[in-house]
C-alpha cells in the first residue's frame, strides 16, 4: 500500500511539532524519516498509526483516507521504541494478541504464530516471557506481533536505539533482508543518518516540523539541498564569502554560483573532510593552508588546517596520501594548498545564520 500525506500539521500547545508536511511512500518501499530530536518525525509516524490526531491535513493509505479512522481499525503494524511487549503474556501470546482480537480461529492462530516464530528466528522461545529473552529477541517479538495480522503498512519508531552497537548492525542487515522477503510498505524513524542511508530506499529528512529534503539516499548524499541537510549528514567545513554575477568568492576561492545576479549576497560553501585534497604546489582552485595537527587512526588521518583568514578546516586523507606529502614525516606546521574536490555553496539566509540540529 502507498502512504500519501497531505499538508499534515500538529501542535502541542505552543509548539508546532509538524508543520505542513506532505510526502508519498511508495508501495513496498522502506522509507526512513530522518531528523534530529524535535524535528517532528516521530509525531508524523504516530499520526500515520492513528496514535496522534492531526490538527490538519489528510493521511491516505492505499486508496482509503484513514485520517478519521480509529487506530484499532487502521490495520497498521507499529513497533515501539521500547517494544512495549506485554510483560504478563508469553512470547506466543504476545504474537497471537492481534489475531485473537480479530477473532481468528484457534488453529489459524496457532499456525500463524508458528509461522512468525520461524520467520523471525524465534523458534523455541514461544513459551518464554519477555523478561526471559534478550534485547534483540524482544525486538523480533515486537516485529512478529506487529506483522501478525498482515498489516498494510509497518511503522517502526527508532527500531535500533535500544540495542547495543554489535546487535544493532546485525539486526539492520537482517531487517533489510526481511523487508525484501515480505515487501510490506515500511516507514521507520531514526536520528542516525548512517542507519537511514544503509537501510532505506527513500529518505525523508525532517527539520523543525518540516520536510527538509526527500529522495533516495544517494541523491541526498550527493545533492544536499540546504545547509541543514549538509550539516546533518555529517561533518562539514564551512567557507564564508560573497557571491555576485554567478560567481562566489570564498576566502579567495572562486566557485561558480548560478544563483547570484547583479547584487552581492553573503554565501557559505560546504566541503566534506573527504573532499579536501592537499598538495605541496599551488594549484588552480586551491587555498593556501597551514597544518595545525594530524590525528591518525590507522588508514585514515584527520588533518586540522587553518586558512590565511583564520578559518579552521579538517581534511580526511588516506595515510598513504599523507605520507606522500612529506616523505620525512613532518607534516605538522607545514604549509600546503587545500583543493576542494566538491564544494556546495548556499546563500546565507538572514534569519538562519547557522542551521539547527548539528
Amino acid at each position, binding site marked *: 500500500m502507498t502512504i500519501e500525506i497531505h499538508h499534515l500539521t500538529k501542535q502541542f500547545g505552543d509548539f508546532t511539532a509538524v508543520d505542513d508536511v506532505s510526502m508519498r511512500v511508495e508501495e513496498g518501499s522502506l522509507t526512513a524519516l530522518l531528523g534530529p530530536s524535535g524535528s517532528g518525525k516521530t509525531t508524523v509516524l504516530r499520526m500515520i498509526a492513528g496514535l496522534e490526531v492531526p490538527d490538519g491535513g489528510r493521511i491516505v493509505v492505499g486508496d482509503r483516507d484513514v485520517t478519521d479512522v480509529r487506530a*484499532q481499525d487502521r490495520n497498521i503494524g507499529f513497533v515501539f521504541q521500547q517494544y512495549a511487549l506485554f510483560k504478563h503474556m508469553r512470547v506466543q501470546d504476545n504474537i497471537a494478541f492481534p489475531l485473537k482480537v480479530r477473532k481468528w480461529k484457534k488453529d489459524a492462530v496457532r499456525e500463524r504464530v508458528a509461522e512468525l516464530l520461524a520467520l523471525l528466528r524465534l523458534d523455541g522461545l514461544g513459551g518464554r516471557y519477555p523478561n526471559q529473552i534478550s534485547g534483540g529477541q524482544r525486538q523480533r517479538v515486537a516485529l512478529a506481533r506487529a506483522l501478525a495480522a498482515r498489516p498494510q503498512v509497518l511503522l517502526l519508531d527508532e527500531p535500533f536505539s535500544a540495542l547495543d552497537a554489535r546487535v544493532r548492525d546485525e539486526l539492520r542487515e537482517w531487517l533489510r533482508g526481511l523487508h525484501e522477503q515480505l515487501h510490506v510498505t515500511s516507514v521507520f524513524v531514526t536520528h542516525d543518518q548512517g542507519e537511514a542511508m544503509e537501510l532505506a530506499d527513500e529518505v525523508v529528512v525532517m527539520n523543525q516540523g518540516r520536510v527538509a529534503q526527500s529522495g533516495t539516499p544517494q541523491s541526498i548524499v550527493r545533492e544536499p539541498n540546504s545547509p541543514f541537510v549538509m550539516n546533518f549528514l555529517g561533518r562539514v567545513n564551512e567557507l564564508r564569502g560573497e557571491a555576485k554575477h554567478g560567481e562566489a568568492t570564498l576566502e579567495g576561492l572562486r566557485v561558480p554560483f548560478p544563483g547570484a545576479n547583479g547584487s552581492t549576497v553573503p554565501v557559505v560553501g560546504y566541503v566534506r573532510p573527504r573532499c579536501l585534497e592537499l598538495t605541496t604546489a599551488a594549484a588552480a582552485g586551491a587555498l593556501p593552508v597551514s597544518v595545525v595537527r594530524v590525528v591518525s587512526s590507522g588508514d585514515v588521518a584527520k588533518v586540522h588546517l587553518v586558512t590565511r583568514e583564520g578559518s579552521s578546516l579538517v581534511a580526511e586523507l588516506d595515510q598513504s596520501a599523507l605520507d606522500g606529502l612529506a616523505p620525512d614525516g613532518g607534516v605538522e606546521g607545514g604549509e600546503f594548498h587545500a583543493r576542494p574536490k566538491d564544494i556546495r555553496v548556499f546563500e546565507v539566509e538572514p534569519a538562519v545564520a547557522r542551521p539547527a540540529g548539528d
Partner: protein
Amino acid sequence: MASHSVGAALPSEEPRQASTSVFAEPAWVRLLLIVVGVGFLGVVVILPVALVFEQAFALGAGFYLDAIRDPDTVSALRLTLTVAAIVVPLNAIFGVAAAWAITKFDFRGKSILITLIDLPLAVSPVVAGLIYVLIFGAQGYIGPWMREHDIRVIFALPGIALATTFVTFPLVARSLIPVMQDVGREYEEAAVSLGASGWRTFWSVTLPQAKWGLLYGIILCNARAMGEFGAVAVVSGKITGKTDTLPLRVEKLDKAFDTTSAFAVASMLVALAVVTLVLKVIVEWRTSDHESGPGSPAREHV
C-alpha cells in the same frame, strides 16, 4: 519465590544481595537493623497476636469451641462475611474506575476527585457512621419516608454495608493509582495499534499489568471491612444476634467481663486476617513464577 520481582522486593531477600553490593554495611550495622526490625515486630505484632490465642484457650479447647459456636457469635461472623462480600467488590469496581479516570484522562475537577477519594482516611469513622444516621435515621432527612415504606437502613445490613463502604473506599483506588501510572501509555497504545478496542485493552493489558496494586488494595479493603469498628458501631444498633459484627461482638463480650469468650471471638478475626494473607501469598506465588510485576527491572536471560 526466589527469582521474581515481588519476592525480590521483600526485605527478606535483601541480605544476600547486600553482601555483594557496594552498599554493603559492616556486619554489626546489619545485625542491629535486623534485631531492631524483628524485635519491634515481635513486641508490637507477634506477642499480642500470640496473647490473643493464649487467652482464647485459657479455659481449654472445649470452652473455646463453645464460645465460637454460640449462635450470637455465628450470626456476627455471618454478618461480617456478608458485609465484606458486599463492600469489597463494590469498592474494587469503584477503585478501578476511579484509578482509570485519574491516570488516563485529563478532566475538570480531577484534583477535587483525588481529594474526595482521600476524605474517608481523614475523617474519623465515628463521623462516617453519624453521617448515615443523619441521613437515614428516624430523625434524619429521609428516615421518616423510608420508615413509611418499610425500608430499613440504619440498625440493619444496608446501613452497616454503607458505613463500611465509606470507610474503605479509598483503599483500592489509592493502591491502584501509582501502579497504573507506572504502567505507561505505551502498552495501551500498542494494544490499540494491534486492533484492540478500549475495553479489550483495559481487560487484557491495563488491568493485568496493574494486578498487584489491585490485589493489594482488595486485601487492605477486605481486612478493613472485616475489622471496622467505629463507623459500624454507630449505625448497627448492636442488636445481639442480628446487627452485631465480629468486632462489635468482641467488645460486647469484653464489656460483660466474659474475657475468654471475647478473646475466642477475637481469635476468629485474627484467623480471617491470616487466611487473607495466605491467599495473597498463594496468588503471588502462582502468578509470579514466570513474570515480573510492573515497575520491576526486567532481567536478561540471553
